[in-house]
């Protein structure tokens, strides 16, 4: 194939490379955050705290508003950071780090967050200002990442999920019907893992009513699974085994981890990250 002159000329331009890694988030990093059909650029304001991380959104093009800062990164990116729109998004929505802001830039962002930076653009105080549309989109994107969740809501976290049935079957019977071990059946009845769709169908026949689908996982497991470190492989599993449904892939993984942990007899707190790394190595 003859060389394409436009491609040659484009390739000679300086194309910066994003980091595309998943370290533990620290303050002053530019990340891509995404969940389902929403994606956006965010700058972390602090290290993650539990399941959440404080961020402000960023855009690519001018203009901004009176609290927007044009930041610089160490690798040549210049995002517009909308410091007036901070939010605590779910940690698991961070997809990969793009770059680190320079210390001067991050200081300017923090000043803008505090309302102390000199404005570069006018405030948006008229809905007819086209920037109002940009701001509205950023607010919606952040809200989607705040509300994102992969855990199913459990209506009554104390009762086992299958308590909605008129009688709770014995683990041995559930194990026989589902073709699993009594231990696994017991965990299912205790809400320590979620039934798969196929299992839910069989349980519906057994119980005469659909079982509750919520499962209760260890809180520490949930927090550790939310770490960006595990996102690429969970994403791959979602693609391979769950038709792209990342939430379902996460729930399935959490169930596997709970089963694995139940088989281990070491005393003390579980090292979920180590278990996850082992389980996901393949």
């Amino acid at each position, binding site marked *: 194939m003859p060389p*394409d*002159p*436009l*491609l040659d*000329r*484009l*390739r000679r*331009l*300086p*194309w*910066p*490379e*994003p980091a*595309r890694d998943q370290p533990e988030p620290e303050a002053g990093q530019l990340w*891509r955050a*995404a969940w389902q*059909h*929403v*994606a*956006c*650029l965010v700058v972390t304001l602090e290290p993650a705290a539990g399941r959440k991380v404080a961020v402000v959104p960023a*855009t*690519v*093009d001018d203009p901004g508003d009176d609290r927007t800062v044009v930041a610089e990164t160490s690798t*040549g*990116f*210049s*995002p517009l950071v909308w410091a007036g729109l901070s939010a605590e998004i779910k940690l698991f929505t961070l997809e990969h780090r*793009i770059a680190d802001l320079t210390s001067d830039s991050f200081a300017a962002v923090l000043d803008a967050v505090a309302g102390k930076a000199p404005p570069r653009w006018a405030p948006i105080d*008229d*809905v*007819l200002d*086209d920037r*109002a*549309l940009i*701001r*509205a*989109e950023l*607010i*919606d994107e952040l*809200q*989607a990442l705040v509300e994102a969740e992969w855990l199913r809501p459990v209506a009554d976290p104390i009762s086992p999920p299958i308590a909605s049935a008129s009688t709770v079957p014995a683990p041995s019977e559930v194990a026989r019907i589902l073709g699993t071990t009594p231990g696994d059946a017991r965990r299912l009845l205790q809400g320590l893992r979620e039934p798969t769709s196929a299992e839910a169908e069989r349980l519906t026949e057994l119980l005469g009513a659909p079982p509750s689908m919520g499962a209760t996982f260890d809180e520490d497991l949930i927090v550790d699974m939310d770490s960006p470190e595990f996102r690429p492989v969970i994403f791959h599993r979602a693609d391979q085994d769950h038709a792209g449904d990342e939430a379902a892939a996460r729930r399935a993984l959490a169930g596997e981890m709970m089963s694995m942990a139940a088989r281990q007899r070491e005393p003390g707190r579980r090292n979920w990250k180590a278990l996850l790394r082992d389980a996901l190595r393949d």
Partner: protein
Amino acid sequence: MDGLQAATAAGNIDERFVEVLRRVATVASRARAAPNGAPRWSAEDIDDLALETIGRVTPAKVVLAAQRASSDIEFRGWLAAAVRTTLNLRARETPSGQVMRAVDDALREDPLRFVVIDGHWTLVGDERPPSWCAGTEQLVREAWKVETTLIRHSAAVEKTPPMAHRRDIRAVAEVVLLLAGPLPKVVLAETLAARFNVMFAARFDYLDREPDGQNEPPSSDALTAYEEVDDRLAAEWMLNELTAEERRVLAIVATGGGVRGVGAELACANEKAATVTKRLHAKLRRLAELSGGDGEAATEILLDLVGRENTLRHSLDNDGDPDAT
């Protein structure tokens, strides 16, 4: 072009990127004159436009835009917008064709005062040869000495829309031509563009319905009140004030639909749907103010214009290109 967004987000520029970039540049160029007066855009012109766009926005922004996009379609839309901006910036180097059209229309209506000779606007009876070579600065200063009717977007906003009354265009042109003698059309248009603050506007419109009496001075009421304006002209102006998304949901809002309906049509979340709805309400109020009365007739015309535009867009063969304008 699956995977375009992901590959570009990683900084990998390949044949997919070039193919999409060429395609969006080709579509954007269809509505513009070819460079250097050629009858059509050549493949080289398209490549130059593509390269100029990437050079202008910088590769870093291209990668960041790909990082921000949630899909190939969204990233492609960003590329298309970047190309259109390049074309608009190129057009800024000369007065917008729309400005020249508006000036020509206004002056042609008064053949007793203005005439075109060899591409120069001239005052009737002025026998001076074209000789002005002092640039437009002095002409613009002279132009500002003419009092004109101020048109505002709304009572609450200082910014003025790119519009003027034709009698004002003629009044300013007369003063400028008195000073300069015959002027090339482009120089007169540049001067008026500066005077009416439309240097970077894609449109420059007039509002008044008919050529008014040439010797009729504006009344003091007319200086502070809005005159009756042709409903169709007002609707046509408002059509260009609407964003593409606003055009899609205009009918919903104009017929009493709310935020939920707008959100469903645009497939967007609440904040954006609410913002678009508020903007449309404000614009429809402005349309009513411009056209006088309750604005019903102008709104009907606007809905019809939007509907016809949508029909035309759907029927055009655009190679399935979502970025075609």
